[in-house]
C-alpha cells in the first residue's frame, strides 16, 4: 500500500467557517493508505508548504492529498511543493472543499460531511496515481499577427524588435486599418496619418517583419509553439515584383466604384490603392468590379502598364507556414446605423456616422477637408451629434459601452468649431465618459472653449423638413422636449465585432462572448491571453477600445508572444492520453474526435497462431495531446486512458463515494 499524507487547509476562514477542518483531518486518518493527516490555516503559504515538504520526507510519503481550494487555483503550487521534496508532482491530488463545498454551503455539519466524502475520493484516487513525466517540444521562433491595424502593427513591431520574425497579415491590401481612416486623434489632435504612416512604413521595412497583405487565415492546425497556419493569398491580378506603383493603371481605369475607405462618400477605380499612404503602395484589381475580369472587355490597365505587371490569370494561392505564437488583432466594425429607423439612418443622406465625418474632415478625403453635407454639398452650420447609437442599447442587442465615442464626439465638435467658427454643435448624450489621461480636460475644453452644447437625453426622432433635419428629443435635465433644426446629424455609431469574428475564432480555437468579441483568459489577470495557449489578443477584437488602449494591449500581447518564443523549448502536458494497443481495435474514432489532431493510426505487427499479422492501433502524439480526454470517452473498447485520470482512478473515486 502506498503511504499517503492528507493536508486539510482552512483557507483562513474561507473553508474553516463552514467545515470542521480538524474533524475532517481526524477522520481521514482512517482512510486506507493514509499515514499522516493534519490541518493548517493556509496550506499554500510558505510555512504550509514547508510543513508538507517536511512531512513528505519524515513520513516517506508516496503521495499526498491536499483538501483546499480549486485545483485551478493552486494545483501548480502543490505540485511544485511535492517536486521540491523529491516527490513526482503528479503524485498529488487536490480536493476542492472551498469553491465546491464551503463557499456553496451554509450548514457546517453538512459541509464537513461533504468535505470528508470528497477527501475520501481523493485519497482513493491518489493511491492509484502513477508518477508522470512531461516531454519537451521545440518552439518555432516566428510569430503571426493577424490584422494590420494599429494594434497589429504595434504588436508586430514589438515582437520584431525583440528579435523574432513576424508575419503581419491583413486581409485588406494595405495595413493601417481603422486608424488610417481617422482624421485626427484625441486628446492631442495629432493628425492620425502623421503618426500612423511612419509606423506602417517601419513595419513594412523592418527586417524581421514579413508583410502579407490581401491574405486571410484559412485553417490553423498544431498547437502552442508549432501552429501550422494555412493562409490564402488572394489574387491581386497585379504582379507586385514588376509593379512600380506608378499609378498609370488607376488613372486610366474607366470603372468607378464607391470607395470603402472613404465610407462611400468618394469613388475609387476598379484597379486601385485605397489611399495615398497605403502600404504596400501598389494597386490591386477588385475582381467584383473589373470589367475585364467580369466580361472580358476593357483590359486598359494591362495596356497602359509600363512594366507588364497586370496579370488577369492570377489565382488565389494557399500556403502553409509554421508559427510559434499568434497575435489576433482583427479590430472592429462600425455599428450598422440602419437599425435605427427612427433616426432615418441609412435613408436620410445627411444622417451620417462618426467615420463618415472623419473622411469629410480629412484633407485627403473626398471633400479635401471641407465639411460638405452629402446630400447637396452645403456647408452645415448646425450639427447635431447623437451618442450611444449601437451602444448601451439593450433593444439593439448592444448593452455594452463602445468606449471611444464620447471622446471622438468631443473631438469632432472641437474640430468643427475650428474649421467653421460659425458652426454650432449640439450633442445628445446619456452620460459623458472620459476615463483616460487628459480626456476630461479635453471634454471640458470642448464645452467651454469650443461652445459645444451638451444636452442630456435621448433623441426620439429625426426627420427631414425641406433641407433641414428636425431632431426631436428630450432634455432630461430640464425635463422638457427639445427640437433642433440641424443641417447635419452625426450618429456616434458604436463598435461591433467583425461580422466574421466567430468564424475566425473557430478556426483558431479561441472563444468569444455573446456579441462576438474574443474572450480573454481572465478579465483582470490575463487580459491579452486566450484560453488557447500561444494565441494572444490585441486591440478592439477583444472589446471596444480607443487607440491608446489598443496600442498598450498590442505591446502587452507582443511581450507575451515574445516571451513564448524566447523559450528554448516547451514542456508538454504530462497528463496525456495513452492507448492500450492490446485492446485497441483501430476503429479510429479517437482520431476523428481529437480537437488537437494528436492521434494517428499506426500499424503494429503481432504474432498470431504462429504467423505474423498486421493490425491498426491508435498512437497518441504526446507532444500535441492536451489531455482533454475526448478520446477516452469516445473509445468504445476502453483502450484509451487519460494518464492521471484513468478509468481505474475514476472508478476508485466512485467506489469511495459509495462507501459512506
Amino acid at each position: 500500500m502506498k503511504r499517503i499524507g492528507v493536508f486539510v487547509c482552512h483557507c483562513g476562514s474561507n473553508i474553516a467557517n463552514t467545515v470542521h477542518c480538524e474533524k475532517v483531518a481526524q477522520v481521514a486518518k482512517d482512510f486506507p493508505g493514509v499515514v499522516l493527516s493534519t490541518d493548517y490555516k493556509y496550506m499554500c503559504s510558505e510555512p504550509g508548504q514547508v510543513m508538507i515538504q517536511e512531512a513528505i520526507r519524515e513520513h516517506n510519503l508516496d503521495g499526498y492529498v491536499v483538501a483546499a481550494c480549486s485545483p485551478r487555483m493552486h494545483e501548480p503550487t502543490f505540485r511544485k511543493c511535492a517536486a521540491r521534496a523529491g516527490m513526482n508532482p503528479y503524485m498529488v491530488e487536490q480536493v476542492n472543499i472551498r469553491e465546491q463545498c464551503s463557499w456553496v454551503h451554509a450548514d457546517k455539519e453538512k459541509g464537513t460531511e461533504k468535505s470528508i466524502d470528497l477527501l475520501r475520493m481523493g485519497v482513493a484516487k491518489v493511491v492509484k496515481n502513477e508518477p508522470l513525466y512531461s516531454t519537451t517540444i521545440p518552439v518555432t521562433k516566428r510569430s503571426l499577427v493577424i490584422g494590420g491595424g494599429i494594434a497589429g502593427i504595434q504588436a508586430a513591431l514589438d515582437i520584431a524588435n525583440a528579435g523574432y520574425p513576424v508575419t503581419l497579415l491583413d486581409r485588406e491590401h494595405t495595413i493601417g486599418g481603422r486608424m488610417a481612416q481617422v482624421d485626427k486623434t484625441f486628446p492631442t489632435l495629432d493628425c492620425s496619418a502623421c503618426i500612423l504612416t511612419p509606423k506602417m512604413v517601419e513595419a513594412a521595412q523592418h527586417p524581421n517583419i514579413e508583410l502579407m497583405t490581401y491574405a486571410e487565415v484559412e485553417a490553423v492546425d498544431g498547437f502552442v509553439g508549432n501552429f501550422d497556419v494555412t493562409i490564402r493569398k488572394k489574387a491581386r491580378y497585379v504582379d507586385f515584383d514588376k509593379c512600380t506603383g506608378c499609378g498609370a493603371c488607376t488613372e486610366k481605369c474607366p470603372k468607378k466604384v464607391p470607395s470603402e475607405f472613404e465610407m462611400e462618400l468618394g469613388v475609387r477605380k476598379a484597379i486601385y490603392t485605397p489611399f495615398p499612404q497605403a502600404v504596400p503602395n501598389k494597386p490591386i484589381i477588385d475582381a467584383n468590379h473589373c470589367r475585364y475580369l467580369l466580361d472580358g472587355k476593357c483590359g486598359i490597365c494591362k495596356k497602359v502598364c509600363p512594366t507588364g505587371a497586370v496579370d488577369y490569370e492570377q489565382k488565389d494561392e494557399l500556403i502553409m507556414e509554421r508559427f510559434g505564437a499568434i497575435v489576433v488583432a482583427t479590430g472592429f466594425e462600425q455599428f450598422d446605423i440602419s437599425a435605427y429607423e427612427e433616426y432615418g439612418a441609412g435613408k436620410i443622406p445627411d444622417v451620417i456616422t462618426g467615420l463618415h465625418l472623419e473622411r469629410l474632415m480629412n484633407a485627403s478625403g473626398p471633400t479635401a477637408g471641407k465639411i460638405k453635407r452629402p446630400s447637396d454639398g452645403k456647408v452645415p452650420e448646425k450639427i447635431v451629434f447623437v451618442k450611444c447609437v449601437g451602444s448601451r442599447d439593450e433593444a439593439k442587442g448592444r448593452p455594452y459601452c463602445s468606449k471611444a465615442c464620447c471622446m471622438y464626439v468631443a473631438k469632432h465638435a472641437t474640430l468643427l468649431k475650428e474649421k467653421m467658427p460659425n458652426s454650432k454643435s449640439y450633442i445628445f448624450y446619456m452620460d459623458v465618459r472620459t476615463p483616460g489621461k487628459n480626456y476630461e480636460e479635453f471634454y471640458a475644453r470642448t464645452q467651454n472653449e469650443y461652445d459645444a452644447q451638451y444636452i442630456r437625453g435621448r433623441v426620439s426622432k429625426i426627420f427631414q423638413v425641406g433641407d433641414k433635419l428636425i431632431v426631436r428629443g428630450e432634455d432630461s435635465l430640464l425635463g422638457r422636449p427639445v427640437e433642433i433644426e440641424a443641417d447635419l446629424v452625426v450618429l456616434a455609431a458604436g463598435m461591433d465585432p467583425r461580422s466574421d469574428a466567430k468564424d475566425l475564432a473557430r478556426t483558431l480555437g479561441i472563444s468569444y462572448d455573446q456579441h462576438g468579441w474574443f474572450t480573454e483568459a481572465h478579465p483582470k489577470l490575463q487580459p491579452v491571453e486566450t484560453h488557447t495557449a500561444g494565441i494572444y489578443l490585441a486591440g478592439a477584437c477583444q472589446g471596444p477600445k480607443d487607440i491608446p488602449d489598443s496600442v498598450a494591449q498590442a505591446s502587452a500581447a507582443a511581450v507575451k508572444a515574445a516571451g513564448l518564443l524566447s523559450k528554448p523549448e516547451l514542456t508538454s502536458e504530462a497528463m496525456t492520453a495513452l492507448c492500450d494497443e492490446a485492446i485497441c481495435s483501430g476503429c479510429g474514432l479517437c482520431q476523428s474526435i481529437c480537437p488537437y489532431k494528436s492521434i494517428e493510426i499506426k500499424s503494429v505487427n503481432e504474432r498470431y497462431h504462429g504467423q505474423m499479422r498486421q493490425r491498426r492501433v491508435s498512437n497518441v502524439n504526446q507532444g500535441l495531446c492536451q489531455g482533454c480526454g475526448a478520446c477516452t470517452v469516445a473509445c468504445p473498447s476502453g483502450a484509451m486512458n487519460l494518464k492521471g485520470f484513468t478509468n481505474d482512478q475514476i472508478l476508485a473515486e466512485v467506489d469511495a463515494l459509495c462507501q459512506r
Partner: protein
Amino acid sequence: MNQITKEMRDLARELLASGEVKGLIGWTKGSRWYLTPPVVITQPEEAEQLYFDQFAVNNLTGLLLDYRYGDDKIALFVKGCDSRGIVRLLQDHQIKRDNVLVIGVPCMGMSDKKAVTDPRQPAELPLLDKCLECRYPNPVIADRLISGALVSGEPSEPKGLTASEAAKRGVGSKQADRFAQVKAIEAMSADEKYAFWQAQHEKCFRCYACRNICPACNCRECIFESDKKGWVNKSATPTDNAFFAVTRAMHVAGRCVECGECERVCPMDIPIMALNRKVIQDINELFGESDAGTDLDGKMPLGLFKNDDPEEFM
C-alpha cells in the same frame, strides 16, 4: 426452389470457381421449416447449400469479424438492414473494403418465428416488428446485386423481385412507430421506469447473444469479458445486468445501425432496441437527424469534434 435462392447459388458458384473470393457467407435451409441459419462455404459445389426465404433473418455482417486480420476476400449476402452493418465495419476499420464482396439481395420482410405454434406444420407467420418499422429495405452498399435488388443510401420503398410481396406484407408500414416505445417509457415516472427496467434486467442471464450478433460490437476484447473487474461484474444479478445493458447501449451509441438483431436474438425478450433508440433519438435531437451506417463517407455525430457542438451541460 425460389428465384432468389437460384440466383444466389449461381453467383456463389461463379465467385468461388473463379477464385474471386475465398469464402462466402450466406444462409442455408435449416432443420425446420422456420429456420434459415447462416452458412459459410468455400467450395463451388457447396453453393447448393445456400438458401433464402423469409426466415433468412440473421445479419451476417458480424461474421466478417472472423476474417478481419486476414487478407482473404470474402463474399456475403446482405439485405437492406444487414448492409448498414457493412458500413459500420468499414467505418470502424474492422474490415478492408477490398477484402469484402457485398452482394445485395431484395427483401420481402422477415417472418417472426416466435409466432410458430406447431413446429411440424408450416404456416403463414406475421412480419417481425423490426421489418414493419424498416426504413432501409434496400442495401445501402453492394458490389453485386441479384434478383433486381437496388442500392439506396436513403430511406426507400422495397425494390427488386420481391417488392410487391414486401409491400403486401407491410414492410416499412410502421416506420412512424420507430420511437413509440421510447416515448412510452419516457412518459413513465422515474419509479415506473426503474420498475420497468428492473423487471427486464431480472430476466437477463448474460448469454451475450445481443453482443455477438451486433456488427457495432467489434472490440478486440469485450469489456464484459475483461479481467479488469470493477466497472461491471459478470454475475447475472439485476444490478450488474443493468450496468451491462446501459454500458452496451453506450458502447454502440452513435454507431448502432438499427438492424434490430440484438433484440431479435434475445432469448428473454428484453426490449434492447428501446435503449438503442433512446440514444439515437437524443443524438438526432442534439446533432440533427442522421442514420448511422448509411453513408460510408459520412461522419458519425459522436465521432467528430466541432467547436459549435452543443454543450448545454457546461
